[in-house]
C-alpha cells in the first residue's frame, strides 16, 4: 500500500488549516490526585479534512475535543482554529458540535431544536425555517418535524443532533461519539449521511469514535491515541477518496480492509514507547 501525503484538496475558502493543536497538555486536579488527560499533543487538521480520534477509554479523546471547542482550557500548549484562538473561534460560531448524548432540548420540537443555533445567532424566521426543513429532509425526519424529542427513538434523536450541528454550515464539525449508542444498521446509514453532509458543506471534521471500521470509513486520517498519559501514538493516512466513500461497496473493498488492519495494528500492537516527535503528516 502506498503511503500518501496529505490528500489532495482544492483551495478552501477558510485557508488551509482548520485546527492547529500545539503541545496541548491538560492536567486535572482531583481530590484523588492529578490526572494527566493529555500530554503534549500536536495535531493539525486541514480545512475540509476528516480526522478521527480513536483510542482506549480514558485516553483523552473527549478532553482534546473539548479543548478545540473551548469548552475547557489547556494546562499548557495552544489551540488555534482557523488561525485564531479557540475562544475567538467559539465566539465567532466557527464550529458545530455534537455530543455523545443527543442533548436536545425536550421542550422544543425537532424543528425548533434544529433551528436553535440559527435563532440564537440572529438568523431570520423565514431563513431559519427553510434551512431547518432542508436539514430535516436530509436526515430523513420529515414526518417528525413537529414531534418532541421524547417521541423519537435514540437514533432519531441523534440524527436531530447532527442536523443541529451542521445547521449553520460550519467550516468545522466536532463530534464526540455521535453514533456511540446506536445499533449497527442505523449507524451505517448515519455514517453515509454524514459523508454526504460533509461533501455538501466541505466542513473539516474532528470525530471521536471507538469503532475502527467507522473511523476508516469516514476519515482522511485516523489519529490513534494511547492512555496514561493521553498521547498520540500514531496517525494513519486512509487513502480512500471521498467519492469512493459515498459508495456503499467501499465497505467490502480490499483497500478499506487494509486500512482497517493498519489502524487495528496501531491500536493493539503499537510499540509501547513510540518515537517522540515523529512527523505526523
Amino acid at each position: 500500500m502506498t503511503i500518501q501525503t496529505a490528500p489532495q484538496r482544492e483551495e478552501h475558502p477558510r485557508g488551509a488549516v482548520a485546527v492547529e493543536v500545539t503541545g496541548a497538555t491538560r492536567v486535572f486536579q482531583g481530590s484523588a490526585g492529578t490526572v494527566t488527560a493529555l500530554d503534549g499533543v500536536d495535531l493539525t487538521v486541514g480545512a475540509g479534512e476528516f480526522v478521527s480520534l480513536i483510542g482506549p477509554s480514558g485516553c483523552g479523546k473527549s478532553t482534546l475535543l473539548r479543548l478545540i471547542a473551548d469548552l475547557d482550557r489547556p494546562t499548557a500548549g495552544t489551540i488555534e482554529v482557523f488561525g485564531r484562538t479557540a475562544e475567538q473561534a467559539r465566539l465567532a460560531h466557527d464550529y458545530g458540535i455534537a455530543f455523545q448524548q443527543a442533548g436536545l432540548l425536550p421542550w422544543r420540537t425537532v424543528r425548533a431544536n434544529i433551528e436553535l443555533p440559527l435563532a440564537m445567532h440572529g438568523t431570520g424566521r423565514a431563513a431559519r425555517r427553510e434551512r431547518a426543513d432542508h436539514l430535516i429532509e436530509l436526515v430523513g425526519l420529515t414526518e417528525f418535524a413537529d414531534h418532541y424529542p421524547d417521541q423519537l427513538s435514540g437514533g432519531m434523536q441523534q440524527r436531530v443532533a447532527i442536523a443541529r450541528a451542521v445547521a449553520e454550515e460550519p467550516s468545522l464539525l466536532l463530534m464526540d461519539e455521535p453514533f456511540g449508542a446506536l445499533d449497527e444498521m442505523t449507524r451505517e446509514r448515519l455514517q453515509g449521511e454524514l459523508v454526504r453532509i460533509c461533501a455538501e458543506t466541505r466542513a473539516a471534521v474532528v470525530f471521536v469514535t471507538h469503532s475502527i471500521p467507522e473511523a476508516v470509513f469516514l476519515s482522511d486520517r485516523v489519529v490513534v491515541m494511547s492512555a496514561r498519559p493521553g498521547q498520540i501514538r500514531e496517525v494513519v493516512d486512509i487513502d480512500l477518496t471521498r467519492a469512493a466513500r459515498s459508495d456503499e461497496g467501499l465497505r467490502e473493498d480490499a483497500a478499506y480492509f487494509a486500512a482497517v488492519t493498519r489502524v487495528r495494528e496501531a491500536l493493539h500492537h503499537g510499540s509501547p514507547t513510540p518515537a517522540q516527535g515523529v512527523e505526523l503528516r
Partner: protein
Amino acid sequence: MTAARTATARALPPVLLLVVLLATWQTVVVVGQIPAFLLPSPSAIGSELVALWPTISSAILVTGGNSLLGLLLGALIGVVVAVVAGLLPSADRMLQPFVAGLAVVPIVALAPVLYTMYGAASEVARVIVAAIAAFVPVFVTTTRGLRQVRPVHRDLMRAYGATPRQATVTVTVPTALPFVFTGLRLASSLAVISAIVAEYFGGPRTGIGSFITTAAAGSNYARAWAFVVGGILVGLAFYGVTLAAEHLVRRRSGPRAG
C-alpha cells in the same frame, strides 16, 4: 371509552364514598342523638350553608383574596431570591440555613405581632403570613430546579457563545419551570391554611377564619362548620388551579422533572 366517560368513571368512586360517609354521619347523629356541640349533622350544616351563603361567599372572597395576594407575593420573592442564590454561591450559603429555619417556624405565630404592627383593621398581616408560608416551598423547589440544567445543555450554550441572558431564557428557565410550579402547588395550600389560621388571632371580622371563631364562641356549631366548608372550598380551588397549571407546564418538559 371516551375521555369524558373515563373521567366520570374515575370520579364516581370517591363521590360515592363521600355520599356514603355523609349518610352514615347523618344517621349516627340522628339515631345517636349526638348533641350539636359534639358533632352537628350534615343536614344542619347544609341548611346553615344555604342560609348564610351571602356572608360565607363574601368571607370566601376576602380569605381567598388574602391567600392569592400572599401566594403571588411569596412565590415572586421565592423565585427572585432563588435566582439570586443560584447566581451568587455566597448568597446561597447565607440563605439555606435561614430558609431551613423559616420552614420549621410556625409562621401563623407571627400573626398577633403583625396585627399590632399594621393595625387590627387591616388585612396586611394576613397577607404577610400567607406570603411567608408560600415563600418557603417556592424558594426550595426553584433552587432545586435551577440546579437541574444538564451539563450537555450547559456545554451547548457555551459552544453557541450564548450570553448569560440567552442561556437563562433558552435552557435554565425551561428546565426550572416545572419545579417552580410544583412549589406553587405546595405553596397554594399553605397560603390558604395560613391566611385562615391568621384570622383566628384577631384582625378585622371579614374572612372565613374570623367567622369560624365567632360562630364557635357563640356555640353556633353548625354555623362554624358551614364556614369550615367555605374554607375547604377556597383550599380546593387553589389546589385545583395550581395542579392544572403544573400539569400543563410539566407535560412538555419531560419526565426528568421528578
